[in-house]
């Protein structure tokens, strides 16, 4: 069964203090790894898709990287508006009843203090 584990569960940073969030996964054939941002009471907002080990994607202060076992979301010089829950999800090679399924981790709650 596909599994995704995110760490830490919660992270408190000062504005400008860079850090990384971890997403470890086990999946029977990775089709894609996805990062989302979720604000309280709202739906997840798509950030990145990574397809193969060694791939990197960047967007403003965020950079996502992928290895064969884990992904990192690096946050450079964060601002208070970056405070949110960051979710990681994997999609396995399509098959059977898992067609289209995203398996999510429990998320990392990021709080950035001014």
């Amino acid at each position, binding site marked *: 069964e596909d599994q*995704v584990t995110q760490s830490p569960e919660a992270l408190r940073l000062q504005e400008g203090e860079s850090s990384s969030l971890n997403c470890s996964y086990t999946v029977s054939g990775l*089709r894609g790894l996805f990062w989302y941002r979720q604000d309280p009471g709202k739906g*997840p907002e798509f950030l990145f898709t990574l397809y193969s080990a060694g791939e990197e994607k960047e967007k403003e202060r965020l950079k996502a990287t992928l290895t064969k076992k884990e992904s990192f979301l690096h946050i450079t010089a964060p601002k208070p508006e970056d405070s949110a829950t960051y979710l990681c999800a994997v999609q396995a090679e399509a098959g059977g009843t898992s067609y289209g399924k995203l398996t999510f981790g*429990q*998320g990392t709650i990021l709080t950035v203090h001014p």
Partner: protein
Amino acid sequence: DAGVTQSPTHLIKTRGQQVTLRCSPISGHKSVSWYQQVLGQGPQFIFQYYEKEERGRGNFPDRFSARQFPNYSSELNVNALLLGDSALYLCASSRTGGASYEQYFGPGTRLTVT
């Protein structure tokens, strides 16, 4: 372009009742997926529909059912509601089903069962 829309925003039901949630995908997207998110956890996959056919199903009881209409909108039905069905129900749309296209989420419907 309008994003994924869901209705209603909030809903309060009593145990044993039935509920119908609605979702309209992004224009041009042909696949809709449904997820359940309990507070403090990542979303759990319920169904994926593509071209009006069920393509994927998660580990949810038969009380949960869904359908997709010719205009690609979708409904999620839950019968015989239990207290444990209280959650945020998320709809996500993607261009096609299964392949590693990004899934874009709506704002969700908050269901409370009393």
